[in-house]
């Protein structure tokens, strides 16, 4: 039998201060990056505006493309595929009534010099209002999902377990967002989907540990909670690492082969799977212990 982590006996809870310090550091890095940059890099769907990808039949000079476009409106012009494909970002969206904006504006502008020599590969144009709506919707969906999980775990275990799991998930989400800011990745709807998947995975990991804690607590009534928590983490550790590694494999496949559009999604997953597995034993479990230690002295006083 080929096994990893056989008979693991690590005192995870004893290292909780170290873990908390590491988490604080990671959160801090993200926060500093966010403060320095001032804001997240939102995708078109969240901030409003237009992004058009144009493919030419020939290689075209980027300066020429730039000159044709409505000057006041240009945000970005990037070329790829050796200068035959351009991604053009405009500040305005289709909303405005009489002007031609969005992909139409680009088509009109490029027709002046390249009529018949290009085609629109894709375009996305979102009004500022819809962008705001989508952003709000994403936040609402996330908060509802978290509340639902909190209630479910509180119902199946004890409320502190639910609170600890949700706190850990929050921690994962914040760290992942921090990395997005740090590496200048755009946040768009797909990334929100990724973040919510992380919520699922992270809670998954935490539940597996808590479930073992519940099982052990039933059999070993005399043992200290700290010992039981440690044992539970150790007993499930090979599963935690195996699953993370395997999920990681699938996400890496997405990151490498999934193409440009799914790239941000995969990036969020790559970061999130690591942080999510880590937080289940490094944040969620210690929180339960800290809470129960806080309550213990009171119980002792009451007994006297």
């Amino acid at each position, binding site marked *: 039998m080929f096994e990893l982590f056989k008979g693991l006996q690590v005192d995870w809870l004893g290292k909780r201060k170290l873990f908390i310090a590491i988490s604080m550091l990671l959160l801090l890095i993200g926060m500093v990056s966010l403060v320095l940059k001032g804001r997240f890099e939102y995708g078109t769907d969240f901030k409003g505006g237009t992004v058009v990808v144009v493919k030419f039949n020939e290689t075209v000079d980027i300066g020429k493309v730039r000159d044709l476009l409505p000057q006041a409106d240009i945000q970005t012009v990037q070329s790829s595929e050796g200068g035959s494909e351009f991604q053009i970002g405009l500040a305005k969206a289709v909303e405005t009534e009489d002007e031609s904006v969005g992909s139409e504006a680009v088509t009109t502008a490029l027709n002046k010099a390249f009529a018949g020599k290009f085609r629109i590969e894709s375009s996305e144009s979102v009004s500022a209002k819809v962008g705001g709506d989508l952003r709000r919707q994403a936040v609402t969906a996330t908060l509802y999902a978290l509340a*639902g999980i909190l209630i479910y775990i509180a119902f199946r275990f004890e409320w502190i377990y639910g609170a600890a799991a949700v706190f850990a998930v929050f921690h994962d989400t914040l760290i992942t967002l921090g990395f997005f800011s740090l590496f200048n990745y755009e946040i768009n709807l797909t990334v929100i989907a990724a973040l919510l998947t992380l919520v699922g995975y992270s809670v998954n990991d935490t539940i597996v540990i808590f479930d073992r804690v519940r099982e052990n607590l039933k059999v070993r009534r005399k043992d200290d909670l700290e010992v039981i928590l440690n044992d539970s983490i150790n007993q499930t550790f090979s599963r935690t690492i195996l699953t993370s590694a395997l999920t990681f494999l699938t996400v890496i496949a997405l990151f490498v082969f999934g193409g440009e559009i799914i790239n941000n999604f995969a990036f969020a997953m790559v970061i999130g799977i690591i942080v999510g597995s880590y937080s289940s034993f490094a944040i969620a479990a210690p929180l339960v212990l800290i809470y129960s230690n806080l309550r213990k002295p009171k119980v002792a006083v009451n007994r006297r």
Partner: protein
Amino acid sequence: MNKRIRTRSIITLGITVLSIILFAGIPPSVEGMKQRIRLGLDLRGGTQLVLQVQVDDALKATTDQTIEALRAQMEKDGITVRQFTRPANDTLEARGVDPAKDAAFRNLVDGSFADYEIVSSQGEVPNTYTLKMKARAADEYRLQAVDQALNTIENRVNALGVAEPVIQKRGGPTEHEIIVQFPGIDDPEYVKRIIGKPALLELKLVQGTSSYPTREAALQQYGGVLPPNLEVLESAKAENSGSKIYWIVNKVAGVTGRELKSAGVSRDENGRPAVSFNLNASGAAKFGRLTEENIGRLLAIVLDGQVESAPRLNSRITDNGIITGGGAGFAPEEARELVLVLKSGALPARMTTMQESVVGASLGADSIKNGLVASVVALVSVIAFVLFYYRASGINAMFAMLLNLIILFGAMAYLGATLTLPGIAGVILTIGMGIDSNVLIFERIREELRAGKTPMSAVSTSFSRVFITLVDTHLAALISATFLFLFGSGAVKGFAVTLVIGLISNMFTAVFVSRTLFEIVLSRKERAETLSI
């Protein structure tokens, strides 16, 4: 093989076959799959528009119509009034109503114009009544406008012959948004022009006998200020001279497109393309009266507030007319488009495009290819790992995961769910969830075996213990996926759909199928003392 295992095997096999038939047809084929798995616009290419109906246009139109109706009714009842104005879309003012007829006026409003209420009876001019549309009535008109717009768009899209369009309301009742999807169309301008045209046809009598070169010249005829019942409209197109011309016309239309029966392409007297139209019975009656009483005058044919042409009325006309393109004439496709939009009815209000996304067919094909490659790589590498790590039991996991995917696609085909690019990501994550369940079970079996249990009891204890964990993890994930589905839109929704179905099918394959496979293996051995895990 005992009875329990046989029953379980039959159920598993049945579901497998059913799922394959559901998503690949009988006999299963790639063609069958293409028909049954509905692809989102991001994968097949196409255009999606989110349109917002400017519902206040509908309120404005209603208020204008109410003014005319009220004016006519007051005339009939002998209640004099100096002037009507419309200070806001939902508000009208009757200035200088005969003080002696106060009660009669109030009764008239309460009785016949119940959508409005009198909010004030004071103003600059003595005895001015301000009537405001009641909030409930206004909401009703707004919703009606959205429904009507939806209907009109449907008619137009159907007339265009776009394959498999999606036309739906979107967002809450106060959003007034309509989402339109055209698979396979990656040049949206044409479709946008067709569905966005209000196409309100109005026939209005012209004041005077000629047009004016500028708006100011027209206004000068009335000393700069038009009487409230008249308006200046510009021509739809520049005349042969190269600039637009202006007409003074009655504000109130004699006949509108609402009374249109049909429209068709025809030719004008110069042989250029034109549009002929037929009016319904009530329209024909009005039109007959209008033309008879005004022989010799000009009648402006107004489309969306612009004068297409203003022919002279030479005789009484009842139920048919012709729209010519003015001095410049219509191009053949212009005439065809006009027929299409007139036939499908006018839009009750303007629409603004809130969101437009276009995906070229080749980009969609690339995404499918990338998604497939990523899925296959993910699946193969995961299977290779479990076979290496869990040896013979890894085959179990492999079967469970493959079956999971088969059920996932079967269920998606059955439910008519749409597979999107984020949906493919959901599929890959389902592979991940599937492997997690198996790892969880296998690790537990190893643990129980280490504790000295026989394979048989190790397997059964592990499954019943891990079952609780799986229920907890899957339910928690389902809760978040459900909220994603309910509150998310577009990409997020496509992702949630596959995730929800994947979670449910995974629960089945991990708990039911995998266990059955273990039991089959164990029951085959004479004395089950070893287990390859």
